[in-house]
C-alpha cells in the first residue's frame, strides 16, 4: 500500500463490536507471579477473653456469657468477648451520665481537646497493630486497613479535637451545649473507623458515650478502649460494651440515653426509628445504599473503570456507599465492559493479610450466604453473570468479584442492597434518562459521575438525590466532609461541621 495515500480520515474511533471481533483476550493470570507477602501478626497481642469497658475499667458481664469472634479468612477463633445484658447496659449508661454530670460537660473545650488529640496520637503510634487486628477480625485487606481505615480513624480524632474549643465559632451566637449521653451502634464493615466517626465528634461537643461495636468485629473497638483507658480520659466518658442486636436494642430503649447514632442496615434503622418515636431522643441514622455510578461517553474511560472497580470492590463491597449500580452510556458500553472484565482479572483475591491482596474475605458466613443468594437471584432473573477466573482459598468466606450485565431497573439485584462484591450494570442513552433512573431507588446515600465536561457534572450533582456525589472519583473520605443520606439511607450528617450539629443542643 503506498504510504502517501494513508491520510488520516475523519472518523470517530470505532466502538468495539458487541461480542468482540475475534481478537483474543489479554491474559493476566499466567507467567510472572508475585511472591506471597503476608504481614506478620506476631506483634499483635490479643487476650483470650475481653470484658466490657464500663466506667474506665474492664468488667465481667453480669450474665457471665461470652461469645467467639473469628477470623473470617481462616474461620479460626481469635478471642471471645462479653455479651452485655440489660444490667450491663444500665451500668454503662449510668456511668456515662455520671461522667457527664461530674466532669465532662463542665470541662472547658481546650481541655477536652487534649484528650482527643492524645487518643489520635496513640492510634497513630499503634497503627500497625490496629491494621493487623482489623484485618484479622473483619477480613478486609491489610492494604486497606493500613492505608485507609486506621489513618482515617486517627484523622477523625485529630479533626474533631480541633473543634472542641471552637464550638462558639461553629455555631455563632447559639450557645452550643452537649446533649448528654450518646448511644452509638456501629457496623462491621469499618469497625475502627466507624467508632472514630462516632466517638470523636461526641467527645468534642462534650457528650459522654456508650458504644457497641458489631458482634463479628469487636476487637479494634476493644483495643480502642485500652487506648482510652491509657489516655487518662475521665472514667465513664467512653464506655464500650459488646453484644448482639439485643444489646443494641437495650441501648436504644434505655431511658437514660439522650441521643442515638446508628450506622447499619435500613431494616434495623427502621426498628430504631419506631423505638424512639414519642421519646425526646435525638437520632442520626446512616443506613443502606444502592449508589449509581454513571459513566458518560466523554469520560476518561480507563480512569472511570478504575473508579468503578474501587467503587464496588473496595472492602469486598461491604460499603454502604458502594457504587453497586453502574450506568454506562450505550455508545461506550462494549468498551467499558471489556475494560472492566480485564481489570477484574487482575484483582488478587485471597489472604487479607497479604500485602498483594486486593480483595479479602467476606465478613461472616451469614453475609456470604446473603451475597450468594443474590448471585443466584441475579442468574434466575436472567441477568448475565461474569466472575473473575481467580481461585478462592479453600477455607474462609470468600466471594469472586462479580458483575451482572443485561440488568434492568426492575431486577431485584438492581434494587436491593447486596453489600458484597457484586455490580449490576445497566445502560442509558440521555442525561435525563440516567438522572431519573439513578434517583429511582428507595436509597440515596451516594452517587458517582464520570465525564470530561464540567457543566455536566454540575447539572447532575444538583439533580442527584444523594448525600454524597463524587465526580471523576469514588469512595473518597475526609473528616472535613459531611456524610449521610436521603430517603431510606437515613438522615443526619457525620463528619465536618455538620457532624458537630448532631451532638449539640442549639
Amino acid at each position: 500500500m503506498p504510504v502517501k495515500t494513508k491520510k488520516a480520515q475523519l472518523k470517530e474511533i470505532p466502538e468495539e463490536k458487541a461480542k468482540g471481533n475475534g481478537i483474543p483476550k489479554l491474559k493476566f493470570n499466567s507467567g510472572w507471579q508475585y511472591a506471597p507477602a503476608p504481614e506478620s501478626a506476631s506483634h499483635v497481642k490479643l487476650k483470650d477473653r475481653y470484658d466490657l469497658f464500663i466506667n474506665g475499667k474492664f468488667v465481667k458481664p453480669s450474665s457471665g456469657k461470652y461469645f467467639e469472634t473469628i477470623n473470617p479468612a481462616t474461620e479460626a477463633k481469635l478471642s471471645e468477648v462479653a455479651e452485655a445484658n440489660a444490667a450491663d447496659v444500665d451500668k454503662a449508661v449510668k456511668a456515662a451520665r455520671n461522667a457527664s454530670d461530674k466532669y465532662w460537660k463542665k470541662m472547658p473545650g481546650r481541655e477536652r481537646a487534649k484528650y482527643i488529640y492524645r487518643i489520635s496520637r496513640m492510634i497513630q503510634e499503634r497503627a500497625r497493630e490496629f491494621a493487623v487486628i482489623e484485618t484479622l477480625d473483619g477480613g478486609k485487606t491489610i492494604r486497606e486497613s493500613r492505608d485507609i481505615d486506621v489513618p482515617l480513624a486517627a484523622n477523625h480524632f485529630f479533626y474533631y479535637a480541633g473543634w472542641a474549643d471552637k464550638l462558639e465559632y461553629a455555631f455563632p451566637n447559639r450557645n452550643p451545649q452537649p446533649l448528654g449521653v450518646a448511644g452509638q451502634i456501629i457496623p462491621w464493615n469499618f469497625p475502627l473507623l466507624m467508632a472514630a466517626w462516632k466517638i470523636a465528634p461526641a467527645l468534642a461537643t462534650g457528650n459522654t458515650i456508650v458504644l457497641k461495636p458489631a458482634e463479628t468485629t469487636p476487637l479494634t473497638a476493644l483495643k480502642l478502649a485500652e487506648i482510652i483507658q491509657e489516655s487518662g480520659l475521665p472514667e465513664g466518658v467512653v464506655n464500650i460494651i459488646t453484644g448482639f442486636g439485643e444489646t443494641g436494642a437495650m441501648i436504644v430503649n434505655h431511658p437514660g440515653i439522650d441521643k442515638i447514632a446508628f450506622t447499619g442496615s435500613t431494616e434495623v434503622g427502621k426498628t430504631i426509628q419506631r423505638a424512639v418515636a414519642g421519646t425526646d431522643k435525638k437520632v442520626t441514622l446512616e443506613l443502606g445504599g444502592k449508589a449509581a455510578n454513571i459513566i458518560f461517553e466523554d469520560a476518561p474511560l480507563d480512569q472511570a473503570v478504575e473508579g468503578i472497580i474501587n467503587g464496588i470492590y473496595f472492602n469486598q463491597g461491604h460499603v454502604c456507599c458502594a457504587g453497586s449500580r453502574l450506568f454506562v452510556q450505550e455508545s461506550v458500553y462494549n468498551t467499558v465492559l471489556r475494560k472492566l472484565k480485564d481489570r477484574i482479572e487482575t484483582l488478587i483475591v485471597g489472604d487479607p493479610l497479604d500485602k498483594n491482596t486486593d480483595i479479602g474475605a467476606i465478613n461472616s458466613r451469614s453475609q456470604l450466604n446473603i451475597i450468594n443468594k443474590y448471585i443466584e437471584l441475579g442468574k434466575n432473573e436472567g441477568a448475565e453473570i461474569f466472575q473473575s477466573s481467580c481461585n478462592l482459598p479453600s477455607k474462609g468466606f470468600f466471594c469472586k468479584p462479580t458483575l451482572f450485565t443485561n440488568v434492568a431497573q426492575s431486577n431485584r439485584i438492581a434494587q436491593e442492597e447486596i453489600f458484597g462484591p457484586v455490580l449490576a450494570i445497566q445502560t442509558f442513552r440521555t442525561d435525563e434518562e440516567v438522572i431519573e433512573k439513578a434517583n429511582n431507588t428507595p436509597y440515596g446515600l451516594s452517587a458517582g459521575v464520570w465525564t470530561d465536561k464540567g457543566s455536566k457534572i454540575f447539572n447532575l450533582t444538583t439533580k442527584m438525590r444523594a448525600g454524597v456525589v463524587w465526580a471523576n472519583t469514588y469512595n473518597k473520605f475526609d473528616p472535613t466532609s459531611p456524610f449521610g443520606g436521603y430517603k431510606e439511607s437515613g438522615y443526619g450528617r457525620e463528619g465536618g461541621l455538620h457532624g458537630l450539629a448532631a451532638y449539640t443542643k442549639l
Partner: protein
Amino acid sequence: MSALKERIVIPDFRLSPRVDQVGQEEKTSRFTKRSIKKETKVEGLKLTLSMIDLTTLEGKDTEGKVRQMCYKARHLHDAYEGLPTVAAVCVYPSMVRIAKEAVGDSGIKVASVATAFPSGQAPTEVKIEDTKFAVDKGADEVDMVISRGKFLEGEYNFVFDEIAAIKEACGEARLKVILETGELVTLDKVRRASDIAMYAGADFIKTSTGKIQPAATMPVTLTMLEAIRDFYYNTGKMIGMKPAGGISKSKLALHYLVMLHETLGQAWMTNQWFRFGASSLANDVLMQLVKEKTGLYQSADYFAID
C-alpha cells in the same frame, strides 16, 4: 500483514480518549505496592536486564566508546552465570556500523536513533535520508522522534504522514516512535500522540529522548500502555512499549514491570514488546541480582561501567 492493515479504520485523533491525571497517578501508585521479592524479584530483574536498550547518545561518542558499550552489552557481569544479554544497543546513525560489528552474532539488536534526533527539527526528506542511512548500515531498529512543534500546532495529519513515511523508509527494521512526552506535557496529548503513532505504523511507542525532563514517568507510561491495549482490541495488532530516561533503579524498573503485567498481561512480558531505554539501570539490576544470590551488597566498583 497487509490484509490486517486494510481492516484498520483510521480514527479522528482529535477524539482520542481523554485521560485524567489524578486518576492516573492514583492508579500508578497502586502498582508500587505489589510485593516483589525472592524468586519473583530475581525473575523480574533478569527480565529487566533482557529488556534494556543499552544506550549512548552523546555528541562526544566515539568508535571506542561504542565498542566498549557493545562488549558490556554482551557480557553484563561474567562473574554471574546464566545472565541474559541486553535486548539492544542504541546509538547514533554514524555509529551503527561499528555497533553492528561489535555485537556480532550475539543476537543483540542494534537500534539507531534517526530523524534529526533529538529535536526532529529538520525537513521530512532529511529525516527519511537519515533513516535510510541507519538502515543501510545495518540498524535492526530505528528510534524516530515525532515533530512535536507540528503536533502542538494541531497538524496531526503532518505528524501521521511523517511517521508513515519513516516507517516505509525503515523497510524491515522495527520502528520505535519517540513522543517526547516531556514536551507534550498533558496526558491527553500523550494519548493522542500514541494513537497517531500506532495508526501510522509504529512497531513501538517510546516516551522520551532522554534529553528533556521529565522523561519517562509511570503515569505517562501507563497512558501509553492503555493506548496500546485499546489499539490491540481495535485492530488485533500488538505494539511494543519503551519508556526511556529516568529509570535508573531496579525497584522502579520492577514497578514498571508490574504495571506492564497488569495492563497488557503476559504476552507483553518479553523484550520483543517491552524495552527500557537506559544507560545506568543495568548496573543497579546487577547489584541487586548479586545481592539476592550472596545476601550482600557490593560496592559500585564491582560492576563495570562501560
